[in-house]
């Protein structure tokens, strides 16, 4: 009877863990002990094989890139005026800006939206354009010119970048062979740009040429000689050590 009163509660609490237990569907107690620290790295996932690009994929890619290229160069691609300011277009844009070659002069006058779109109130709400834009909308001559230029660019873009790189490699190997033989490569029809390319490539090859005996540039450049070079400096200072051996 004493167990029912004050001691009863003590009896009930004895033997139990004192904290909630996790149990599964059948009522079995699940282990909740932490076995060691968590792993430092997640498990290594075996990645699937790289998918092969089929001929159909290549055709799709070609068409997709032709469309993407069209959109980028069309008046439909709207950029902010601040996007073409200094420090925003990367090194190429900075070179163009500082060299004074205007992109507009190179590519021709840019087209307006109203030149290529038919702005009719039936399809476009009239509050988006004025009467002048509507009158000049869809001008056939400018449209024709725009489409012709896009078609011309498409011909250049069709050449795969890898093919262009392969072509460049061939040009460079031909140029390096020419420099070694001392002869001009066949045909005097090269443009100035190709000459500059060859000169630049030749300069690179000259700088990194491995035909030198020690792999360095000029022999009298002591900067490249490294720590073994004795330039006779720093020996005139009298440290006052006398003729004792120096350890």
């Amino acid at each position, binding site marked *: 009877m004493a167990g029912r009163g004050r001691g009863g509660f003590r009896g009930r609490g004895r033997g139990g863990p004192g904290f909630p237990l996790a*149990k*599964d*569907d*059948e*009522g079995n107690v699940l282990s909740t002990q932490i076995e060691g620290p968590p792993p430092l790295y997640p498990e290594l996932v075996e990645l699937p094989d*790289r*998918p092969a*690009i089929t001929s*159909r*994929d290549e055709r*799709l*890619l070609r*068409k*997709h890139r032709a*469309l*993407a*290229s*069209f*959109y*980028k160069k*069309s008046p*439909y*691609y*709207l*950029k*902010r005026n601040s996007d073409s300011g200094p420090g925003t*277009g*990367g*090194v*190429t844009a900075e070179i163009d800006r500082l060299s004074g070659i205007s992109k507009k002069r190179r590519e021709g006058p840019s087209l307006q*939206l109203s030149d*290529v*779109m*038919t*702005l*009719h109130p*039936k*399809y*476009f*709400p009239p*509050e*988006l*354009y004025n009467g002048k834009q509507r009158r000049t909308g*869809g001008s*056939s001559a400018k449209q024709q010119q725009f*489409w012709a230029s*896009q*078609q011309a660019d498409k011909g*250049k*873009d069709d050449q795969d*970048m*890898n093919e*262009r*790189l392969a*072509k*460049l490699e061939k040009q460079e190997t031909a140029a390096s062979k020419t420099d070694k033989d001392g002869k001009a490569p066949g045909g005097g029809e090269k443009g100035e*740009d190709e000459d500059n*390319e060859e000169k*630049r490539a030749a300069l*690179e090859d000259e700088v990194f040429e491995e035909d030198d005996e020690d792999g360095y540039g000029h022999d009298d450049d002591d900067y490249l000689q490294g720590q073994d070079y004795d330039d006779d400096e720093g020996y005139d200072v009298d440290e006052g050590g006398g003729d004792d051996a120096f350890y």
Partner: protein
Amino acid sequence: MAELVHPEACQLATLIVEEQLGPICKEICALLLRKGYQTLFELAKTSGCPRAELYDALLVLTQHNCIQPFVLEQEEGAKTSPQTVFQPDLLAILHRLRSARCLLHIADTWKGTNGQDETKIAEAIVEGLLENGRLTSQQIYRNVAGKLGCAVDDSTKATKKLLCQLISSHYVERAPPANLTLPKPAIHPDAMAKGRGISAVAKAQEEQAANLRRLDKVSYGRDRFRIPSDLRLDDGHSAAESALKRQKLSHSASTEALDMGTDPILWRVCYEEFNRSFRHAACIAMISQARDEEAAAIASAILTKTRHFETRLKEQESQPLSAAMIKASLEEMMQSGEEVSPIHDVDAVLREIERDDLEMMTSSTGGPDGTMYQVQLDTCINLARLKTIESIVGARFGLLGLRIWRALFLSGQLEQKTIQDMAIGDQKDTRQLLYGMLKGGFMAVTEIPKSADRAASRTFYTWRVRRDIVSERIGLDMVHSMFNIASRLHTESLLNLELVQQLESGNTTILKTHRQQVSHLTGARDLLESSLFRMDELNSVFNDF
């Protein structure tokens, strides 16, 4: 996918718009997708863009069918002019990823009477419309002439003929006008509060009917594929015949006369028809895998012949055809040069179709033309989805997981013990896989408590697979994957921005050190873009078909 407003679908759409139409259009598009339709005033206020940029962006997005202007309905007797709102079209933006696939479809399947020349012209028309969004017929003639490299007058006749054929085949449609009334959202019956009584319900229904009646007046659906008179005339007939036709037309309905007036008609690509073609191709591929090439050829013949009778994209089944008509359709396909596997005995193949357990193609007797055969499009698409789901389950959860899933799919609702016995797995692994699949959204669990306190030890847990929920979940996962691939592609381009700019400008003066970077970048782009197209093909099976 019409009801899909998943956040990642909207983010994917903004990525597509940014890549193709620039950052300003991307901002406006993102705003519209986030907030729904907006008036011009609201857009000007929330976007923060200068007016000129905002107007240009709205014009470009409308031109490329990414948004559609509507007119807000006003109450009768209102004194203010109707307001224009701009509503984004999420599906149309996501379908822009399929533009290359559409071009490929036309190049591979369009067979004209003049062979390759007509195929090239058809491809040029579709390409011009994809590039420019919307064009008038005159602009299409000029565009095609420029692509083919010939004078406009030389190619106009052939282009006009091909344009008519494309409109008849529903690959090209009229652009919708900007004065359509914005359709009001349908009132759900549960949304009507209790206690309002019948009169309120009747009033709401009448209002909806009135809206529909008003919509019919300016109905775009009826005129969508109507070929105007100026395209139908001058098709090679003599001047006298043309004059006679004009006279007949002048007595016809007033809508015909409008086509000859000053309002231009803008044409655009109809993605719905391309999706229908892709859906048919998916069904034929499924039949080819499940049965054989001959059955697939017969399915192709049925679908080609009955294509024009389909009124909506998600038709459950094709129109029935008799054996004689199937044979005639097969012969037509072979004569037109389509790639169809030759069938030695069509009747034998049809008899096998009658015994098909999968019921991808069914037959019905009792008609005047004998036994009629039809393709069950819904069944084929469901089988294609099932195959994809099983491959995903097998890849993620292994063979045991696949056995468990199949056992539940075939048997319905089962307890864990029964599943374990059917799948021949041990208790621990089975439980782990079941909860893993529950977390992945591949199955559902139902609690059947024996006592009121719902204690776990006194509750039955039954597991089941609900195909529709799993399909929806996989569809969303696919959009998520597409977004991941597209954003990775975008990041790769940003990281190599200068190199990409050099490549796009055609500057081939690339130093040695950059060439490795270029080959890495082009390899990565090829892989990511081709993966994106493949994901889009799979995604269309779950979300569009």
